[in-house]
């Protein structure tokens, strides 16, 4: 009996991975699209099993925001911070530098911009917004400065330090808006005063809620694309990430690259924070940390760490956010379901990576 069983087991087909000589370009493009499509299929099945209207969930989350032109402005608003943060993170990830604390850098960027806004609250002029933008970038950079210093000087893992500082940033936000920055006119609400008219981003398209953040996000993605594909810096980042020994031989300093990519990702996250606080929020509130910094990690991967890919992926993730709100009101799907869809998408994408780098060979074990 035992022997027979063993014999049978030997007949089972096995699969083995074999490294491709070159990562497949075709698969690199195809797998993110496949991941999104598979998420829709799998999502419909999983949510049907859970007792929800699975097909309805997929339709509302993925299609309604595209089909309904009234939702496009919401997409632009949601996509902007995701794209800006995602572009920064993707540059770092290219160099194998794992800043996962963008949420904290986003918060501190928003706080720095708020600080400038409160300080200049009785002033006016075109220069207020640029100054707040600079403060936002500086805030984000300051928050990533510690992980960068510790990684380059002491070889402390930036994954843990950048994430830990996110929790500290949330406490800093609470301290400021429950304490010194609390508006005296908000009836005890923990929030700052409203920014003045010159401290609020202009509306780009009349009659919509689209502010300057959206075109800035597109501009940043295109600039990043040019820099990453045309400049020595872009080459340096890619080499340090994919072939650290070659980079050293070629005279690229690893530490300098780490510093640069971390400051860029922190600065962009901080800038996104400024665009949010001076945009949709108009003031600093406790609900400011909306998780953009974490979702931007998915955006970076789904966009294949390519700035234009990130631009598209940012819109895809924005669709799921906007669609999630739609599904909540139309079919009563809990908002948290969106997080599950997003996680599923990332899992499927990572699973699809195997097709980029490996051939799957069927082998018969003798």
């Amino acid at each position, binding site marked *: 009996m035992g022997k027979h069983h063993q014999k049978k087991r030997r007949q089972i087909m096995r699969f083995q991975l074999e490294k491709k000589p070159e990562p497949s370009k075709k698969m690199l493009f195809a797998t993110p699209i496949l991941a999104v499509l598979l998420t829709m299929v799998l999502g419909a099945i999983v949510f049907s099993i859970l007792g929800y209207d699975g097909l309805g969930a997929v339709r509302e989350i993925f299609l309604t925001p595209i089909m309904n032109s009234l939702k496009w402005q919401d997409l632009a608003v949601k996509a902007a911070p995701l794209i800006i943060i995602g572009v920064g993170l993707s540059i770092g990830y290219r160099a194998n530098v794992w800043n996962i604390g963008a949420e904290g850098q986003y918060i501190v960027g928003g706080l720095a911009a708020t600080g400038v806004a409160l300080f200049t609250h009785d002033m006016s002029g075109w220069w207020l917004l640029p100054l707040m933008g600079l403060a936002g970038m500086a805030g984000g950079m300051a928050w990533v400065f510690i992980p960068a210093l510790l990684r380059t000087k002491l070889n402390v893992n930036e994954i*843990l330090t950048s994430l*830990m500082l996110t929790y500290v940033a949330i406490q800093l936000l609470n301290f400021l808006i429950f304490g010194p920055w609390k508006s005296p006119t908000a009836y005890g609400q923990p929030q700052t005063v409203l920014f003045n008219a010159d401290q609020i981003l202009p509306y780009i398209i009349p009659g919509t809620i689209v502010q300057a953040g959206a075109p800035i996000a597109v501009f940043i993605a295109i600039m990043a694309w040019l820099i990453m594909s045309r400049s020595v810096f872009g080459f340096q980042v890619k080499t340090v990430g994919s072939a650290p020994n070659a980079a050293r031989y070629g005279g690229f300093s690893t530490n300098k690259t780490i510093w640069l990519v971390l400051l860029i990702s922190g600065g962009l996250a901080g800038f996104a924070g400024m665009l949010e606080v001076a945009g949709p929020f108009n003031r600093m509130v406790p609900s400011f940390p909306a998780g953009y910094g*974490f979702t931007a*990690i998915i955006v970076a*991967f789904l966009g294949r760490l390519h700035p234009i890919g990130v631009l598209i992926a940012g819109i895809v993730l924005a669709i799921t956010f906007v669609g999630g709100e739609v599904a909540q009101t139309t079919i009563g799907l809990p908002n*948290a379901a969106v*997080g*599950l869809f997003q996680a599923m998408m990332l899992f499927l994408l*990572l699973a699809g990576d195997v097709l980029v780098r490996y051939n799957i060979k069927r082998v018969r074990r003798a």
Partner: protein
Amino acid sequence: MNIDLTIAIIITMVGASTPLLLAALGELVVEKSGVLNLGVEGMMLVGAVVGFAVTYITGNPWIGILAAAFAGSAASLIFAFLTLSLSANQVATGLALTIFGSGFSALFGQPFTGKPIALFKSIFPDSLTDHPILRVFFDYSPLVYFSLFMVFAVWWFLQKTRAGLILRAVGENDHSAHSIGYSVIKVRYGAVAFGGAMAGIGGACFPLILTPQWVEGLTGGRGWIALALVVFSAWKPTRLLAGAYLFGLIATMELYAKAAGGSFRIIPSELWASLPYLATIIVLVLISLRHKGNSSAPACLGKPFISSN
């Protein structure tokens, strides 16, 4: 400082440390096998929500814990399949697992918001748990004793058993282990599943022994602190125990400082709340200063294994 307060602080500290200790012990075994699973926070959240829900429905915390262990393990197997069978990037997949865990727990926890369960308390007689002195030994949830037992069990497994030796070999030199006939992938699957179960139980500690209700994101980054603790411990279970209790003490200080007021009020409560995270960073710095150059990390940590035959 009076004795009652000291004992109360010790009891709170041990409780606060237990989820960290359990999750970190699991991750220690995972990393010893050469795998870096950054999804601890996500697996803890999955364990927390399943542990809460099952305890609420069955009214039996033992079944709740068992369910949490299974759920954590099941979540970890997603990670295992992607990284071990499909050799996906471990860092990215671990992050994905954490994102999955927070989405999963938010969705499934929603119906349980505001619903109470009973704390999973000590099973010793009241004469011991209410005794002014002896309660320092007896006034704990069974999960606390389980976590202490697991410190010993993990140490014993890694140092004294053949299976532990194989697991360490796989983590130190996967190709050698493979060439002498051990299945690197199978060993790692086992380690990851164990880590998931431990993280699941650790997550279940939050609603079962700390605050008996469901709160979204209740782990508050403890899974990441557990990862830092493994580095702090230099992959030694006994040092892990010391590290976890140190963090428990910091968290306890926050609670007592908030309650005490007075001179503690000079320090804003937000700074107290930041302390565990700042302490984690400081600990990581101290460790790297001590081990300059020669890290005690398993040699194959985080590297994918592709068999070459």
